[in-house]
């Protein structure tokens, strides 16, 4: 095994409890360094892990900084608790409406694989619903007071091409998912299999569904690798936390990964988590770390994980993955000629409501994609 380089301070915080500290008696963080560390702790959602590191003596903060950290954690946990309360309430409404759903990420991870849910904050709820129940679920959330952040670009887009839609209310945000990833991986992942791969967990007197241990890890890898570029530390921690605490059926894990073209994603997720957090990956993950990823797979992954993401990389990868010319044409039409309501909503978010601009943007992406080859 090759030795791992020392982790940055935020990464050391993200790794607390999973490995030995870099120093038995760490130096006091200088007050002048606290603002940037605080920014990283908040940005990567590490308030709970930072407090745990402080209690273990692995992070030494000036008193004022520690007070501030405690206050930040209190805010984060109050928010998480309110979201959990809302989740139980929404569960009652969705269940009464006959809508089947699976809780993704947040509470499903905090309550099943962390020693204390306070270590794992979350900022919204992520619920996966069946595509056949999509319209009904959206309607029900609307009756519960949630407002859709953006209208559907064109009728049928959500179910055919979408990954998730954001609903906001005073009670918090719900991301309603029809699958686990955007773009090409969203095309390849079979949502019906996700509904066949669930376990239940109890929360607030309710029995909720989550992905089973094996698919939970698969989703954690997808989220850690494809969710943000560069990856956030907490999703990277999730990958190693889940693989070290839950019972993973590695054979099934590998089968699903191959079927859904996720091998390069797993290589990226395990490799990045291990390198950034300076923790050896699970032995079973060595298979993916040693894989030779083909050029085509590498290009698709790069569309999510490099600067190509900001230049329409995911859209272009999606276009290539969609089967048949009709699907590709319908997808491009939705992007270039969305409904006026969609354009107006985007304008309210600061973008100019111009069809010409909508058409020029993908054209620009394609030109730059050709240049990249």
């Amino acid at each position, binding site marked *: 095994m090759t030795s791992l380089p020392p982790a940055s301070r935020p990464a050391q915080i993200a790794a607390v409890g999973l490995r030995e500290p870099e120093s038995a008696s760490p130096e006091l963080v200088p007050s002048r360094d606290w603002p940037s560390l605080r920014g990283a702790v908040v940005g990567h959602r590490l308030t709970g892990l930072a*407090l745990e590191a402080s*209690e273990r003596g692995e992070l030494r903060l000036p008193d004022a900084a520690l007070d501030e950290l*405690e206050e930040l*954690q*209190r805010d984060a*946990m*109050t928010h*998480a*608790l*309110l979201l*959990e*309360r809302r989740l*139980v*309430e929404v569960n*009652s409404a969705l269940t009464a409406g006959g809508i089947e759903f699976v809780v993704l990420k947040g509470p499903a991870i905090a309550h099943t694989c962390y020693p*204390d*849910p*306070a270590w794992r904050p979350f900022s919204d709820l992520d619920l996966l619903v069946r595509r056949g129940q999509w319209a009904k679920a959206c309607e029900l959330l609307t009756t519960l007071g949630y407002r859709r952040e953006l209208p559907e670009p064109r009728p049928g887009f959500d179910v055919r091409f979408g990954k998730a839609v954001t609903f906001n209310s005073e009670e918090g945000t719900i991301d309603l998912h029809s699958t686990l990833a955007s773009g090409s991986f969203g095309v390849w992942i079979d949502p019906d299999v996700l509904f066949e791969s669930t376990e239940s967990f*109890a*929360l*607030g*007197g*309710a029995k909720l569904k989550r992905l089973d241990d094996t698919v939970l890890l698969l989703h954690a890898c997808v989220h850690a690798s494809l969710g943000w570029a560069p990856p956030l530390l907490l999703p990277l921690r999730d990958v190693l936390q889940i693989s070290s605490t839950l019972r993973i059926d590695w054979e099934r894990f590998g089968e699903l990964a191959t079927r859904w073209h996720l091998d390069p994603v797993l290589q990226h997720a395990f490799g990045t988590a291990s390198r950034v957090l300076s923790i050896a990956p699970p032995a079973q993950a060595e298979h993916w770390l040693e894989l030779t990823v083909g050029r085509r797979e590498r290009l698709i992954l790069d569309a999510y994980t490099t600067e190509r993401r900001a230049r329409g990389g995911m859209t272009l990868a999606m276009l290539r993955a969609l089967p048949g010319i009709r699907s590709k044409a319908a997808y491009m039409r939705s992007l270039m000629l969305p409904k006026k309501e969609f354009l107006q909503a985007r304008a309210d978010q600061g973008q100019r409501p111009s069809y010409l601009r909508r058409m020029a943007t993908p054209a620009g992406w394609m030109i730059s994609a050709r240049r990249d080859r």
Partner: protein
Amino acid sequence: MSSDWIRFQQTESSLSRNLGAEVIVTRPFSNRVDGLAGSAGAVWGRLATPVSLPELVHDISAMYQVGPEEIADDIKGLLDQLIHLNLVEEVILAND
């Protein structure tokens, strides 16, 4: 029936987070979040499993090294309040 036989426990519907020196609690369909600081947080933690009032008083007095008679009324008051908020309930154990 003696009150020694009555046990109390957090309700299944209660939701909480431990913040070290404080615990925050709520439950679905309620519009309040309560903070339980210091010994109140310790009482909440002990209520994770069924406990009688005398046991609760005994455990908390041992934890804070004060006489049971000094804290019994406060603990009883807190317990009543938590029951009123549907955060704690009486439970009947099969072997009682």
